[in-house]
């Protein structure tokens, strides 16, 4: 069926046909025709954020927690430029997102018109692909292509720039099934010879490890289930990147904790000493590898990834397998089973003996004493009091984020939303709004630092307007804690601009917005305060005053190898040399 309608109607119709139920946005002159169409229908909810960056992170939270693409609608010029951080964030973390921007009318493009910006030019490097639509007849096709590109292969953000005259003009609508999707079609099936090679390596490995990442979660629930099957059938230990938490359950008995710069001692030692590393949907990021030339020196490395450019980018691997994690793991399990389900089980139990020795170091230990709340303790109590809830966690960026990754347990995929690749302060609060929109009945908590939280605090208005009971759990150390930690370890304790000066009274701030504020400073009051937060039916700003100079350990200093990990304050003197100091 082809039908004539206005460009604005085409946009809304295409969104509906793509199954979109929620759009995060902010209006302005160049998108008024689309807002007018949104006003005249009831299938798509529009969430009015308070800043376009908020819209992008909310869309990311929505996408990450549902597996569906997030949709953003903003105006031209400043609306588009404000969305740049969120698109870059989504690109780094492979989050599917469709951003629709208004543009000045085609006949004014290039004239420095009011609120004109070269949006496709600005966003070319921070999207997977983008389009400027100059003809209303191309609009439907482009919309459907955009969904296809954003969600297939390695997911990512895409942008469609729509001039205002194109929104007003009439054109032909084509349905998704009829639309030309172009030639973009990344392969999902892995090469069977390579998969067989991996199965053979699994049979002879004495010290294997599975290193899983965000790609497992992106691939869908089935991939996470297959990862569990693989680990449970082979008894191989599993570690994960920050982005992959929840794909293998934290309460599973093959789980050895997160790896990387602030990962567990046992996970990093296992990576360093293993003889077979199976990387599943991760990308050997510098937070993971530490010093590249000392990275897991004696292992065979297998890399399963849907993006060919991830292979051999940082670490040379012996067996690359390009394909979708779900497809590859399914084939792998078939092949491995048909070959007789063999593993070096005796050697692997010995390997577990070694891992358990490392684990006995108890690398996350801290002491809660006196009248000051340790941030780790606050998170442990939060974990104890919320783990049985239908719970989603988002975070901001800093020490609190790493402690959240260390002290909260994720037993399912899509329950943990954090800004990994870009490390965007200000991500967590709007992301929690996006998650709560998608899961209205669930408990959604943003683990925040006071500094990060202030970066997008305007979204309190959004939470109130849409009655979203998001819990903002601020670990308030009155410091840009992670910056302060690096200055302590690297810059002679010269704390240059890492204080959070002139902080607001968070309780009053909450009340000013019409939300509930809770402040707690005494460890003895913590449990009651957390319960009060959970039980309050509405947004809560939870100001948890914590130890100001706590450092986040373990830590692999930048430029060091996995087995040169710092475990606590005692050993940090001179730990980071000038070579490492240039790294970020």
């Amino acid at each position: 069926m082809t039908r004539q309608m206005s460009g604005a109607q085409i946009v809304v119709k295409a969104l509906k046909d793509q199954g979109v139920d929620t759009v995060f946005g902010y209006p302005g002159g160049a998108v008024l025709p689309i807002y007018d169409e949104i006003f005249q229908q009831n299938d798509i909810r529009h969430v009015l954020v308070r800043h376009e960056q908020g819209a992008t992170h909310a869309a990311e939270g929505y996408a990450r927690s549902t597996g569906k693409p997030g949709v953003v609608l903003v105006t031209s010029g400043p609306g588009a430029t404000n969305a740049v951080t969120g698109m870059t964030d989504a690109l780094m973390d492979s989050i599917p997102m469709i951003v629709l921007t208004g543009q000045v009318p085609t006949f004014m493009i290039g004239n420095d018109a009011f609120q004109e910006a070269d949006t496709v030019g600005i966003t070319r490097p921070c999207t997977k692909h983008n389009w400027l639509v100059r003809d209303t007849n191309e609009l439907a096709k482009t919309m459907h292509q955009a969904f296809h590109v954003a969600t297939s292969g390695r997911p990512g953000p895409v942008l469609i720039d729509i001039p205002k005259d194109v929104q007003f003009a009439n054109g032909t609508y084509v349905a998704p099934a009829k639309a030309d999707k172009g030639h973009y079609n990344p392969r999902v099936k892995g090469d069977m010879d390579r998969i067989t090679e991996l199965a053979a390596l699994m049979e002879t490995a004495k010290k294997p490890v599975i290193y899983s990442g965000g790609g497992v979660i992106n691939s869908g629930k089935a991939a996470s289930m297959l990862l569990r099957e693989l680990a449970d059938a082979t008894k191989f230990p599993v570690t994960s990147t920050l982005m992959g938490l929840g794909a293998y359950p934290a309460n599973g008995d093959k789980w050895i904790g997160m790896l990387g710069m602030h990962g567990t001692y046992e996970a990093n030692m296992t990576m360093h000493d293993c003889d077979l590393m199976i990387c599943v949907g991760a990308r050997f990021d510098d937070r993971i590898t530490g010093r590249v030339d000392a990275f897991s020196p004696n292992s065979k490395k297998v890399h399963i990834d849907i993006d060919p450019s991830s292979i051999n980018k940082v670490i040379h691997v012996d067996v690359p397998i390009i394909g979708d994690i779900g497809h590859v793991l399914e084939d792998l399990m078939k092949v491995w089973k048909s070959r007789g389900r063999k593993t070096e089980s005796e050697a692997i139990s010995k390997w577990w003996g070694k891992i358990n020795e490392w684990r006995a170091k108890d690398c996350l230990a801290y002491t809660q004493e006196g009248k000051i709340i340790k941030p780790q303790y606050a998170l442990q109590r939060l974990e104890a009091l919320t783990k049985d809830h239908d719970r989603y966690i988002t975070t901001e960026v800093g020490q609190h984020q790493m402690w959240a990754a260390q002290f909260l347990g994720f037993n399912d995929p899509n329950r943990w939303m954090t800004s990994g690749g870009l490390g965007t302060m200000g991500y967590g609060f709007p992301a929690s709004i996006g998650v709560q929109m998608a899961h209205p009945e669930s408990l959604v908590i943003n683990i925040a630092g006071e500094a990060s939280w202030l970066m997008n605090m305007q979204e309190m208005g959004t939470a109130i307007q849409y009655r979203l009971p998001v819990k903002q759990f601020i670990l308030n150390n009155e410091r840009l804690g992670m910056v302060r930690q690096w200055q302590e370890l690297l810059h002679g304790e010269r704390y240059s601009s890492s204080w959070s000066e002139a902080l607001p009274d968070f309780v009053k701030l909450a009340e000013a917005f019409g939300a509930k504020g809770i402040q707690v400073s005494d460890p003895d009051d913590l449990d009651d305060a957390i319960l009060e937060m959970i039980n309050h039916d509405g947004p809560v700003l939870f100001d948890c005053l914590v130890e100001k100079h706590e450092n986040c350990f373990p830590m692999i200093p930048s430029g060091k190898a996995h087995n040169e990990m710092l475990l606590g304050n005692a050993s940090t003197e001179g730990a980071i040399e000038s070579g490492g100091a240039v790294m970020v």
Partner: protein
Amino acid sequence: MNALRIKKGASRKSAYDLKSTYGDEIETHTLAVLVDNEAGVLARVIGLFSGRGYNIESLTVAETDHAGHLSRITVVTTGTPQVIEQIKAQLGRLVPVHDVHDLTVEGPSVERELALIKVAGVGEKRVEAMRTSEVFRANVVDSTLESFVFEITGSPEKIDAFVEMMRPLGLVEVARTGVAAIMRGNAG
């Protein structure tokens, strides 16, 4: 072997030397990239090179299939084997890219560049310029009593050599197209 093939291990250094974990010899490769001829596609390719710190030694682009709206971009680039692999993979995942061919490794190929070279002079120098142009099989496409414009086609090295010969003879200006390249034989 194809005499026009650019030697491996020639040419400049890349900042990526520092990063490489294996095979750090710098190689020169000629890539043929088939793309949708849509707005911004060249910016995408160039942005990829500048954004990721890759080198472009030469780049040419033109529509080669009008009906299919396809353009061919020929890029000559340098880097370690690992970087070259990365460049190909990064190009390959751009949405408008159909195909990436590494002509340097996929078998013998032909590479040509065209240049227009203006030389001004009188007397003995003018005669010498004319004589040299014949040796290089350059054509005269414009002449005045005091100048020539030569047209020369060949490998980049041949053009380099001709330009060097013209320098003492009154070289005024050089315009070069960059390299166009194609595989030998009947395969597409």
